[in-house]
C-alpha cells in the first residue's frame, strides 16, 4: 500500500500498527484460514487431542503411528483456525461533528481509528465490513478481505461528513440484522442519543454471539467543560438553544455525563461488551496501543 495515500491512514499509523494483532476473544467463523479459532475442528497444524476410532470416521484421519505403538485405532484431532469477519460501525451524526479547537473533531478521530482497525484486519487477512449511520444507515461496505475493498472503504471514509440527528437504536437494530453471527463488531460513537434505550439494541448483536467493542469518542470540551460565563449552548443535532451560566451548571453536567457513562458501562459489562472511552486530545495511535495492551493483559 502506497504511503500517504489515505487521509485517515497516515504513515505513522501504519508504523505503529506493525506489531499489533487483533485477536477475537470468542470463537469466530470465517471462510479462510487465519489467526482466529474456529468452532469447526479439522485439519490444521494445531493438534487438539486423540479420540478412539468409531465406525463411520474417515480412515484417512487414523493415526497409524499410534496404531503401530498401541495396536488400537485412534483418530487425531486438530483445532481448525479461521479468518475473522469484522464490522466497523461509525456514528456520523451531528454530535460527532462538534467543533473542537485544539484537537480533531470527534468524527475525524473516529475515522482514524476505523481506518486503523480496517488496516489491521486487512493485515491479518480478516474480512472487514463497514457501516456508517446517523438517523439511518447511510454507508454500507460488504465484509471482504481484499485490498481493493479496503482501499474503496478508506476512500469512502474520506468523503463522509457528519451531520443530522441520530437514531442509534434503530440503526444498530438494522445493522445487527445484516451482520452474520459470531462476527467482531467495533462501534465508534459518542453514544449521545436522545433515546436512552438505544443501548438495548446491542442485544441483537450479543444474541448473534458477536464480539462487540464500543469506542466512545469524546472531546476535551465534553470531558473538561472549559466554558466560562454566560454561554448559549446550541444542540448541534437539533439546533435547540439553552442559555446557561457555565459555572453554575458545570457540576451538574459532570454528574450527568458520568452517570450516563456509568449506565453504559454497566450495561456493557452485563453483556460482556468491551467499552472504552477515548478522548480526541490523545493521539489515536497511543490510545489504540493502550487499548490493545490492556486487552492483551485481560486475555
Amino acid at each position, binding site marked *: 500500500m502506497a504511503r500517504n495515500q489515505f487521509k485517515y491512514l497516515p504513515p505513522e499509523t501504519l508504523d505503529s500498527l506493525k506489531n499489533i494483532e487483533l485477536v477475537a476473544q470468542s470463537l469466530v467463523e470465517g471462510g479462510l484460514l487465519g489467526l482466529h479459532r474456529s468452532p469447526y475442528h479439522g485439519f490444521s497444524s494445531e493438534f487438539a487431542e486423540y479420540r478412539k476410532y468409531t465406525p463411520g470416521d474417515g480412515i484417512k484421519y487414523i493415526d497409524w503411528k499410534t496404531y503401530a505403538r498401541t495396536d488400537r485405532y485412534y483418530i487425531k484431532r486438530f483445532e481448525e483456525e479461521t479468518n475473522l469477519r469484522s464490522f466497523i460501525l461509525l456514528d456520523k451524526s*451531528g*454530535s*460527532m461533528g*462538534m*467543533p473542537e479547537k485544539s484537537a480533531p473533531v*470527534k468524527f475525524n478521530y473516529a475515522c482514524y481509528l476505523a481506518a486503523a482497525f480496517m488496516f489491521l484486519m486487512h493485515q491479518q487477512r480478516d474480512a472487514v465490513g463497514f457501516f456508517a449511520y446517523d438517523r439511518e444507515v447511510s454507508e454500507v461496505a460488504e465484509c471482504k478481505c481484499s485490498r481493493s475493498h479496503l482501499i474503496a472503504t478508506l476512500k469512502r471514509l474520506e468523503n463522509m461528513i457528519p451531520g443530522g440527528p441520530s437514531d442509534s437504536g434503530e440503526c444498530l437494530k438494522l445493522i445487527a440484522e445484516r451482520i452474520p453471527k459470531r462476527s467482531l463488531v467495533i462501534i465508534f460513537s*459518542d453514544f*449521545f442519543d*436522545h433515546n436512552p434505550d438505544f443501548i438495548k439494541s446491542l442485544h441483537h448483536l450479543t444474541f448473534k454471539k458477536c464480539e462487540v467493542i464500543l469506542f466512545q469518542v469524546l472531546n476535551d*470540551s*465534553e470531558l473538561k467543560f472549559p*466554558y*466560562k*460565563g*454566560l*454561554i*448559549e*449552548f*446550541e*444542540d*448541534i*443535532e*437539533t439546533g*435547540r*438553544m*439553552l*442559555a*446557561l*451560566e457555565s*459555572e*453554575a*451548571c*458545570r*457540576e*451538574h*453536567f459532570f454528574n*450527568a*455525563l458520568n452517570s*450516563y457513562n456509568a449506565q453504559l458501562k454497566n450495561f456493557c459489562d452485563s453483556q460482556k461488551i468491551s467499552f472504552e472511552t477515548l478522548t480526541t486530545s490523545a493521539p489515536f495511535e497511543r490510545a489504540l496501543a493502550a487499548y490493545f495492551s490492556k486487552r492483551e493483559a485481560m486475555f
Partner: protein
Amino acid sequence: MDFGNSIFLWGLPLVLLPLLLHLFFKRRKTRVQFSTLLFFVKKERYFAYRRKILEIILLILRMTMILLLVLALSRMFFKKFNFISGAGTEAVIILDDSMSMQSRLPSGGTTFDFAQSKAEEILSSLSGDDGAALILLSGKPGVNLTRDKTAVVKALRSARLTATAGSLGAAVQTAIEQLRKAPGVNREIYILSDFKKSGKPSTALNIAELGNCRVFCLPLRGSEDNLSVDNVTIDSTPKVINRPVIIPFKVVNHGKNPRDVRVELEIDGREMQTRQVSVGGKSSAADRFVYIPARSGRVNGSVKIDDDNISLDDRAYFSFNIAGSINVLLVRDTQSGKPDPFYFLRLAINPVKNQPAYGISTESADITDLKDTLLKDKNILCLSLSKPLDAAKAEIIKNFLDNGGTLFTFPEADSVPETYASIARATGNEKSAIYREIVPLRKSGIIFNKPLTEFNDLLQLDMIKWRKIQQLVPFSSGKTLARVDGQPMLLELTAGRGKWLAAAFDLRRDFSNWPLLKSFPVVTAALINYAAGNSEQTVSTVCGENIQLKGDKVSCSTSYGRNNEISQANGKTVFTENWLPGIIFFSGADIELAIAKPDSGESATEQCDDGEVKDFFNAPVTLLDSSSDLARQAEKLRKGMELSGIFLLLLLLLLAVEFLLGGSRAMMIAELKQKIRGRAK
C-alpha cells in the same frame, strides 16, 4: 410643578450613567455548538435569567436613585395651581353673613363668629404687597381690593349677621369684577359659608372666565336643628276695640327630631299669651292667638318661640291699628229732593242714633261738601247719586282710594251710566264704563260668590224680588261678589291701595224689596265690614330687600333700636338697611311702617356635603379644612407640596433595596466563583 433649585436639573443626564456603565460592562452571551443538551437541566437557565433580571432591576434602581437625588436637590414642588412665586396675590374673601350662619357649632359659638376668625387667618397669610377684599354675601358693603389689610380686618370685625339669604352668585361676580381690575397675578377667592342646600345655585357659578384664579371654599358645619315661626299674617280688615283679632302663626321644625316648643305672644313688649306646640321632624304646626284689644291705637307685637339655634327667625313681628269703630261716610245729593237713599242702611247698621252697633259709626254728608278733610278718618265712603259726578270730586275720591279707603257706590232710580264714570276715569278705568243702563229684572233671590259665600245661608235671601238693576260691566281685574241669574249685582275693583265696591241695586225699594227683609241689615253690616279696608300705610318686606319710599325728609326707627336718617339718591328715597327682622317705623314717608321678615329659606339649615359644594362652581375648587390654621393651608397651597423629603425617603428605600439585591447578586457571583475555584483545585 416647580423647582426651588432648578440648576440641579442639569444633573438629569447623570441618570443615564448607570445605563452606559451597564452597556459597557455588559456580559456578552457566547454561543457554543455542543454535541448534546442531555446533560443540562432546563431549570439551570433560570439562574442566567435571574441574574439578568437582577441586573436590569439594579440598573433601573440605580437610574431611579440618581433621578430621585437630582429631583430632591432641585427641590421639586407639586402644585395644584399655577402660583407664581414672587408675584402679587389678590385675595377676595366672601363672607357669608346670611341668617343661617347663626347656627351653632359644637364648640358653642356661631358659624359666623368662626368664619370671621378664619377670615382673619387668611388675611394673616398675605404679605404687605398683596391685596385683599371683603365681600359680604348679604350684599352689605364690604371692602374693595386694597393693600390696606387693617381696613379689611376692621370691616371683617365689624361685620354682623343679617336675616337675609344673600346671593353667592352675585358675590362671586363682584369678586371676579374686582379681581379682573387688580394688578396681582395670583388671584384667589375664599368663600366662607355654610353652603346650605337651599342656597345651591341652579347653574354652576362661572369662575373659569377669570384666568389663574383659584377658589377655596371653607364649608362650615353648624347644627341643623332649627325652629322658626312663620305665617303671622293678620287680615287687613280694620281692627276695632273689643273685637277679637286673630293672630295666626306656624312653627316650622327644620330639623329631623320632633320638638316641643313654647310659643309666646308679645304685645308692646309684654307677654300676653303662650302656647305649647309639638312639631314633628321636618314638619310644621299651625295655631293662632286671639287677641282682644282694649284700647285704640297702634299695636306692635310679635310671636316668639324659644330655640337654641338660629335666633333671628324665632320671632315674627306684626303691627296693626285699633280704631274706635269703622267710620262710614254716607254721601248723597240732598238737593235732588229725593228721600234719603241710606235710610234703610243707617237703620240696619246704626239702629240707635249716635250709638254705633257692630263697631260701625256713620256720618252723612252732601256731595257738595265732599272734601279731603272729611274723608281723613273714614274707612268707607258710600255714594248714592243720580247725576254725574264732576271730576274734582272724583279726584278727591281717587285720593281717598289711593290711601286705602273703600268706595261703595249705589245707583238711584234715575242714575245714568255717566253717574260714576268720572271716578272710573280718575282711577284709570276710563276705557271701560262700570255702570250701564238701568234695565228691568224680574227675578228673585241673590247668590254671593267667594269670599262672601257664607251670606247665602242667611234667611229671606230667596224672598228678594228684583224689579230692575243698573247693569254692571265685570272687569277682568276685578271680581264679581254677587249675581242674580247671571247678572252681576256686586263688583269689587282695586283702585289705588283701596277698593271700589259697585252695587247694581239701590238701598231703597226702587230696585227690590230687599230693605224690608230680615237679611238686609245682616248683609249690609257684613258688607260694610268686608268693605272696610285697612288704610294703614304698612308694607311687609323680606330682610335684604330695599324699601322704596316717598318723602323729602324721611327718618326711621326700628323695633330693634336703631335710628337712621334716610337720604335721597337719584331722586329716590330708598331704605337699604333692611338687614334684621323687626318693625321699621318711617316718619315723613308715604309708608308708616314696614314689617321686616327674615328670609324663610335661611331657616332651613340643611347643608351640602363636600361633593355638592364643588358642584357650586364650574371650575375646580379646593376645600379648606376648618380644623386647622387657614393661613398655613393657604401658604401650603400657594407654595405647593415640596417633594424633596419624599424623594429622599424613596431614595433611602431604593438604596436599601439595591443593597439587598446587590448583596443577593454578589452572593450569586461568589457562589459561582467558589465553583470555579473548586474546579481549579
